[in-house]
């Protein structure tokens, strides 16, 4: 099995993306390019379409129009592309009757990881769920489910990571784990796109910020240029 990872460049180019629900365009000819190695924070009001955008990128919903080019565009949609993508959404995506370890095992096998056991132990360890590994996911609290979701999404160490408000429900300890993990992940060959409502804590880590408004990306700047957009600064407000 030749590793395709070698040739994959984690660049995302979105061109003229439109998504309509009942003829109402949530995303309206949106264009955005995220270069390999970027850590882009996606902000926008409730209902702006952040989740919709991320789900389209993850291949979970189909856009009405427009195209998305990953890397140099050789790998088009399908299993080979999905191998390079990790996604953490609003919901936890687990089999409620299986234990944490069994769920991770299932995904590890679907991703055909070479060392399944190590990957699982590692995932449970870093998310601090070791002691709950044999407990059915059904009994997990919200924060525990979120931790497990993060572990699941990082299991196969994808080059493109899509996070939809990943800090939701995490306690102080887990927040620190995620911060650390994000710093470790943030490498030149990996692209991170993260929807967040209170991005202040992320600003030191992230490289770019994109503002989704009325179906379009109205601002997309490196963090260092933030001062150039007073509107964006105003929207972000004071750190909470």
């Amino acid at each position, binding site marked *: 099995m030749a590793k395709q990872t070698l040739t994959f460049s984690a660049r995302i180019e979105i061109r003229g993306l439109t998504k309509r*629900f*009942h*003829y*109402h365009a949530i995303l309206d000819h949106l264009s955005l390019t995220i270069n390999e190695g970027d850590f882009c924070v996606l902000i926008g009001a409730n209902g702006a379409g952040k989740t919709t955008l991320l789900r389209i990128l993850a291949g979970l919903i*189909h856009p*009405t129009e427009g195209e998305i080019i990953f890397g140099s565009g050789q790998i088009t949609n399908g299993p080979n592309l999905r191998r390079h993508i990790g996604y953490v959404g609003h919901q936890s995506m687990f089999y409620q009757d299986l234990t944490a370890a069994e769920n991770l095992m299932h995904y590890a096998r679907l991703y055909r990881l070479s060392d399944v056991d190590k990957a699982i132990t590692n995932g449970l360890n870093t998310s601090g769920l070791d002691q709950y590994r044999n407990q059915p996911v059904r009994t997990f609290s919200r924060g525990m489910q979120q931790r497990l979701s993060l572990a699941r999404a990082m299991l196969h160490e994808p080059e493109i990571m899509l996070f939809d408000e990943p800090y939701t429900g995490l306690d102080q300890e887990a927040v620190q784990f995620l911060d650390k993990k994000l710093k470790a992940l943030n490498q030149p060959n990996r692209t991170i796109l993260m929807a967040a409502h209170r991005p202040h804590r992320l600003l030191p880590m992230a490289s770019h910020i994109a503002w989704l408004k009325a179906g379009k990306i109205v601002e997309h700047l490196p963090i260092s240029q933030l001062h150039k957009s007073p509107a964006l600064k105003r929207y972000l407000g004071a750190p909470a």
Partner: protein
Amino acid sequence: MDKKPALLVFLDILSVILVPAALVLIVFFTPVEAVMGPVQKVFYFHVSAAWAGMLGFILAAIAGGGYLITRRFPWDWLSLSAIEVGVVFGLIAILSGMVWARPIWNTWWVWDPRLTTTAIMQLIYLAYFILRSGLNTPEAQARLGAVYAIVGVVTVPLTFFSIRLFRTIHPVVIASGSGPAFRMTPRMQLAFFTSLFVFTILLIDLVWNRFRLARLQAKIQQEVSQNAR
């Protein structure tokens, strides 16, 4: 709303003329069948309606395929229209069959395979509407509706062949059936093929008009949702 294409106007007029014409042909031109009497004249519309209905369902499956390949809504509108019109024709076939059955079999309904498969085919396409109404977006309706229309079309040949598969009291005319068939005189054949033709024209006309209605509905919805915000 754009203007009706000339061909459609022509079809409209044609069907308005042809349906009464066929009726006249059936009532005055064909002989009264010896055994069954005048009721037998239901035959022409009965078979034609069933034929048109099945044609509609097959058309819907093809249009469904068209949608899945091209992902363009007009195909979906066509598929939906064909099923709606097909269901109406199917109902006409069943009702006219019932009218026929009443004097011939002395009952409105028997549990005969042909009758049952016809009714089941109707239910399949009623379920199609239930499926669509449970889906949230036009995209999902179109996509899943197309899959269902394609999978569902397998019952059409089954209904057609049911009289040939099972022992049944329902007559077989087309194909060299040996069952309780009746012979058609040349005059009967003329009227029969005429009404088949007329119903086919009627099907095309109705589906086309319904298709335009679907397009209009989509347009209105679009405008409404744009004005909403």
